[in-house]
């Protein structure tokens, strides 16, 4: 966890006390009552000092949401969510927050230890009530250190990187132009809910011809806290620009909110490229799957310009339920979409994830490499759509989805949809399902590897092709995370 360690070290270097006041007390007062209503939407908008148009946008979403139904087509099973019982803005901290680490699932703590996370950082990640470090960590980014340095460098390049709540105030014309232009307000139940109540998230704008001088990470974003539940991210790469964005963190994170419904929109104009990498490791729940996060995410990129390129890379190891299909609309001629995914499920986790590659422009190409690994009693589904519009002459897609089963109580499923409305499209689809053979394990063990080392080695071999697409530092962490995620998956 280099990023986390760095954070903690920086926290130690400064006098934490000066950040003790103000910040937390503000949060205490910033809470809305239970349930969702127009009043709540107005409350959220007012709290964020949003302009009128933003409030109207949210209210419109809210009214439409009221008429919508929760989708049921995914292969996931969970108790009905009562939306009137949820908190939609800064839930009170003692809602379900553990009082101390003693109240936290010991399995989770064991994982923290394996990742070498310091105690105070553990408290923060576990969402322990009043964990001092959580304030300080935010404070660091609010103040002097990393963020400022980065901000200067980014500003020099003309890159805008800030919380979306700030961007709404400071760059309303940009936000207004692009927000909801890739994922429309009424796209789906969860996206509509997000549009009504989104808390915060990142906004990135990379101007024409600029190659963003560094990888942008949520870790270095100001006011990270309390954005998790209904996160909203908007990234715009103007003509000929490039940006690489990293989301998430390898340490398992707990959150007092069980339901997460994020929306991420990417827009790449002519010759622009966006690379979006995610490591998702939300709390998966205890042994019986209780208390895990429900993660219903809508991520979509629009290659709006000619020769635009959008590449999604994801490593999904956490959450009780994952419902997530990072997709590409290949609108510009000769635009390219890529999706590289590793989805690991263990215990009672349920994953329904994949992508959509929608070919609209001529000579558009897309590539899908998906590696699903199911262990324990988990269910792991790849669901993907590749479609070519009538005008998408010479659209090309290559899809490879492989599933690996560990043990005999888990399930792997592949549900590919392919639609070609032009006879010039060439779509290739390869899929395999395999099991880690007892013989393979025995072979490795005979050479001296323990069973867990053997599984980690075999799985890392299985996902290698995808790991290569992650930024170096992330890839090393992800590799470690994969090993840890699969502990106890056999025997």
């Amino acid at each position: 966890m280099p990023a986390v360690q760095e954070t903690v070290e920086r926290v130690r270097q400064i006098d934490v006390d000066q950040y003790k006041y103000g910040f937390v007390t503000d949060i205490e007062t910033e809470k809305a009552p239970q349930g969702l209503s127009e009043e709540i939407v107005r409350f959220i908008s007012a709290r964020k000092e949003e302009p009128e148009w933003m409030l109207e946008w949210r209210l419109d979403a809210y009214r439409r949401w009221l008429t919508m139904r929760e989708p049921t087509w995914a292969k996931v099973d969970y108790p009905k969510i009562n939306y009137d019982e949820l908190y939609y803005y800064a839930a009170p901290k003692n809602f379900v927050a553990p009082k101390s680490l003693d109240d936290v699932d010991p399995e989770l703590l064991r994982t923290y230890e394996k990742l070498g996370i310091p105690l105070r950082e553990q408290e923060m990640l576990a969402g322990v009530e009043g964990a001092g470090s959580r304030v300080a960590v935010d404070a660091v980014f609010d103040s002097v250190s990393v963020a400022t340095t980065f901000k200067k460098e980014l500003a020099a390049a003309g890159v805008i990187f800030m919380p979306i709540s700030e961007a709404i105030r400071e760059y309303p014309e940009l936000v207004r132009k692009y927000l909801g232009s890739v994922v429309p307000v009424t796209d789906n139940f969860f996206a509509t809910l997000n549009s009504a109540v989104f808390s915060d998230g990142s906004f990135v704008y990379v101007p024409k011809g600029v190659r963003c001088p560094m990888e942008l990470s949520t870790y270095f974003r100001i006011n990270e806290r309390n954005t998790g539940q209904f996160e909203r991210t908007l990234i715009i790469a103007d003509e000929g620009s490039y940006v690489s964005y990293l989301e998430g963190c390898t340490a398992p994170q707990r959150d007092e909110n069980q339901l997460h419904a994020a929306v991420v929109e990417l827009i790449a104009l002519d010759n622009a490229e966006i690379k979006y990498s995610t490591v998702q490791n939300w709390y998966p729940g205890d042994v019986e799957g209780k208390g895990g996060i429900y993660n219903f995410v809508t991520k979509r990129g629009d290659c709006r310009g000619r020769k635009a390129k959008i590449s999604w890379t994801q490593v999904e190891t956490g959450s009780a339920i994952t419902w997530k299909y990072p997709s590409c609309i290949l609108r510009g001629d000769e635009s390219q979409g890529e999706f590289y995914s590793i989805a690991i499920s263990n215990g009672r986790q349920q994953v329904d994830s994949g992508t959509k590659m929608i070919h609209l422009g001529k000579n558009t190409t897309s590539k899908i490499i998906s590696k699903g690994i199911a262990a324990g009693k988990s269910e792991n589904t790849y669901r993907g759509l590749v479609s070519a519009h009538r005008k998408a002459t010479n659209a090309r897609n290559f899809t490879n989805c492989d599933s690996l089963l560990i043990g005999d109580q888990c399930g792997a499923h592949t549900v590919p949809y392919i639609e070609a409305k032009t006879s010039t499209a060439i779509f290739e689809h390869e899929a395999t399902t395999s099991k880690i053979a007892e013989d393979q394990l025995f072979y490795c063990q005979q050479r001296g590897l323990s069973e867990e080392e053997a599984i980690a080695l075999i799985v890392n071999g299985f996902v290698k092709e995808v790991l290569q697409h992650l930024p170096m530092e992330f890839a090393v962490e992800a590799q470690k995370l994969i090993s840890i995620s699969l502990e106890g998956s056999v025997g």
Partner: protein
Amino acid sequence: MLEIKNLHASVEDNEILKGLDLVIKPGEVHAIMGPNGSGKSTLSYVLAGKEDYEVTEGSATLDGEDLFELEADERAAKGLFLAFQYPLEIPGVATMTFLKAALNAQRRARGEGELSTPEFMKQVREKADGLGISTEMLKRALNVGFSGGEKKRNEILQMALLEPKYCILDETDSGLDIDALKIVAEGVNALRAKDRGFLVITHYQRLLDHIVPDIVHVMSKGRIVRTGGPELAHELEAKGYADYVGAAA
């Protein structure tokens, strides 16, 4: 010393080994020959610790230590090596990566420090050269797309690198042409040492022309039924196993 006493073992309630005795001292090369189904491969799996093989009676000790108290990886770290008849493929894992992981796992288990990458590379290079294994081959995924000969040479490379005390070679000659057989046999002969014991399991005498054993055993129906010198192998080659198939019935 590898000492096996009155070993009985079953797979899914079928008794395959029925009271097998065998003692291999450091420096000795033993060969076990026998007809198909006599339990030769079962013996190698039971000793190496494969699951689904249940020991019902008897014992096996490696330098006095009870093998059956140890997991397969612990037995490996104690110096027991099995060269597989059918080496397994592991896609996406470079041979080099696998070799390093295995060697360091054993070193850790023995409380020795892990080898640094340059040290490790040096060792692998030296040993691979002798077996005609190229750097390109070491970069390929373990055994994936390897020819029969390449797989067996790779087994011997692992043996050379891990420097075990006792080596079991299970039908190492199967699937090899004469040239490949010679390379493999030379590799094994180079590892013969006064502190290392071998158990060479084979159906045919051919391999034993190249790896000349000190002692030859005939196995039938889960037991050793006859023991002799290298000349016994030639006798078997001439007469076949017919006598033994009937004899132990």
